[in-house]
């Protein structure tokens, strides 16, 4: 039996909004990334798994317990870190986390011990006796993680754990998530719309879009099958596209760039030969997989409209805030 089993799960809010639409997926232990753009249904899925939101139809079970009927039993063994602020400013981290440990069902002495343990684990030391209101965003995120860990859950659900953190804070939080998953052998589900972060810590990805399952696969497979090679030339992109299509590759022309799917083997040799034969002024060859849109929309067989693709690229460059990788190997 899988850690989480979801069958045909649908959730509608009123008649207008469909958050989940017939989702079926099994999730096995490990660090699993739940990816999707904003509004894809990630948070709704996490809340259904916690038994906080009643599904409209379909089945879901966590640790072999039905989410509809065994909500409180499930929640004793699941830790949840919400996306939004959830900490009272007037309490200290120690008081607040140990209080929540009691509410998770731990006896009083165990709650105190576990609180000290998890606050040390997330890296809060002397400041844990001060009121949370004075904490930085990074420290607050640590407290949020600590409260999710305090009852030693078997499964940890993290909703956008790096929300609002600066790059250094993101690195630390991701490292913490990874250590939690690997060293403690705890199953972790990380929901995020930032693929760059997810792929650093996860070993399995579940991608949803519009409440439907796009794919569920190990991370390596994901990247291999969905990577895109952008070949940018000063002129003659149409000719290059024709040539590569004739060579049996799936290509999309995007302005001056030709996007080549890397799904079937490594097309580098073919690209090199084609550019050389046609004598085209090559600007660069780069691998693009920085945003979910690249993963999902440029899938072979789904040609992207050039205008949309270039807009997506511009947004990707802005969102990533880092230069695009220009290496051949992932």
């Amino acid at each position, binding site marked *: 039996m899988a850690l989480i089993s979801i069958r045909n799960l649908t959730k509608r809010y009123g008649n207008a909004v469909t958050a989940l639409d017939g989702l079926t997926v099994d999730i096995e232990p490990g660090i699993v990334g739940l990816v999707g753009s904003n509004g894809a249904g990630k948070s709704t899925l996490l809340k259904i798994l916690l038994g*906080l939101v009643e599904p409209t139809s379909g089945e879901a079970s966590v640790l072999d317990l039905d989410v509809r009927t065994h909500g409180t039993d499930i*929640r004793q063994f699941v830790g949840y870190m919400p996306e939004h602020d959830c900490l009272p400013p007037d309490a200290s981290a120690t008081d607040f986390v140990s209080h929540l440990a*009691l*509410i998770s069902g731990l006896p009083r002495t165990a709650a105190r011990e576990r609180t000290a343990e998890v606050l040390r684990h997330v890296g809060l030391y002397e400041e844990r006796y001060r009121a949370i209101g004075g904490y930085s965003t990074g420290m607050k995120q640590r407290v949020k993680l600590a409260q999710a860990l305090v009852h030693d859950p078997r499964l940890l659900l993290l909703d956008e754990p790096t929300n609002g953190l600066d790059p250094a804070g993101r690195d630390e939080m991701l490292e913490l998530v990874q250590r939690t998953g690997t060293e403690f052998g705890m199953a972790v589900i990380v929901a995020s719309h930032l693929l760059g972060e997810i792929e650093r810590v996860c070993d399995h990805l579940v991608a949803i879009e519009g409440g439907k399952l796009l794919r569920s696969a190990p991370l390596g497979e994901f990247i291999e099958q969905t990577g895109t090679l952008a070949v940018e030339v000063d002129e003659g992109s149409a000719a290059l596209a024709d040539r590569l299509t004739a060579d049996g590759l799936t290509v999309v022309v995007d302005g001056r760039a030709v996007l080549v799917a890397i799904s079937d083997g490594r097309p580098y040799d073919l690209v090199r030969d084609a550019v050389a034969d046609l004598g085209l002024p090559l600007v660069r060859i780069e691998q693009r997989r920085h945003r979910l849109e690249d993963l999902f929309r440029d899938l072979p067989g789904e040609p992207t409209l050039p205008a949309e693709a270039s807009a997506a690229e511009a947004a990707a460059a802005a969102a990533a805030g880092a230069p695009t990788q220009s290496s051949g190997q992932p």
Partner: protein
Amino acid sequence: MTDARTTPASATGAGPSGSIYDIGYRRYEGPRLGRRHAARSLFSHSFRSTFGIGRGGRAKIAPIILGFLALLPAIAIVGALTLAVQFGAASRFTAQAPFRYDTYFGTISTVVVLFCAAQAPELFGRDQRHGVLALYFARALRRSDYAFARIGGFVAALLVLQLAPQLLLFLGRVLLSPDIPGAVAEDLPSLPPVLAQGLLSSALLGGLSMAVSAFTPRRAYATAGIIALFTIPNIVAGVIAGLGASLIGTWLILLSPTSVLDGTNAFLFNQPLGSDFFFIDLPNWAYIAAAIAGIVGSIAITVRRFARIAT
């Protein structure tokens, strides 16, 4: 890992050498006590928070001042009684004492209402304002457990607020009396009505205040709403009753929580209502029924609110 759990002494008190080991993350293998333990913990947390225990210094100011005001009449009486005993006038004083068990609830009811207005929004308002509800609901509780535990903790706090002065009064009367067993026997019949009135008034005032504060994360709104709920119906009913002892006007008095509690107090202590009441002809059961309806209704509204609130 299991060694560290089973023999924590070896990990923490590492002997004379005093080395510190990185023992890594330890799993928790102990018991998980589930829903009832969670609800009980939240109940006691609510009770303590209402008095500002376990919270910052500023959170303690209002409960300390209001708690002192609630105790003040009892302190005054016991103090005066002590003096009277010194001068051998105890029996005359006791007969004329302005605050007795049957009048104490009416005496401090304003303090209790202010206590509700000040402290009820601390519990529900704080959880809503800072998003803490999401963390509670993600634990071994149901939403209704959360609502019941919070209301229960607050009602218990109100009960202590109202009964502590009565206990002081009792201790003062008994210990200052020359005939202690006799004094106990004399005061004991007051115990059931004191407890019953304490329960009714704590549950009604507490339930209504919590229902109001469940609907807004804003503290100021909740405080204003609670004060309005406890004063405006009282004034309106008084005006209507004053216009003439019509049937409707008389029954409308049951919409005013404080008047209802005056009625239950008169019934439980078997005292006639004062002359400022125009509705003496209402049957006694009507007050009790109105109080119980108010308690059940306010709790039901609160539980329903938290069953639907989005987190």
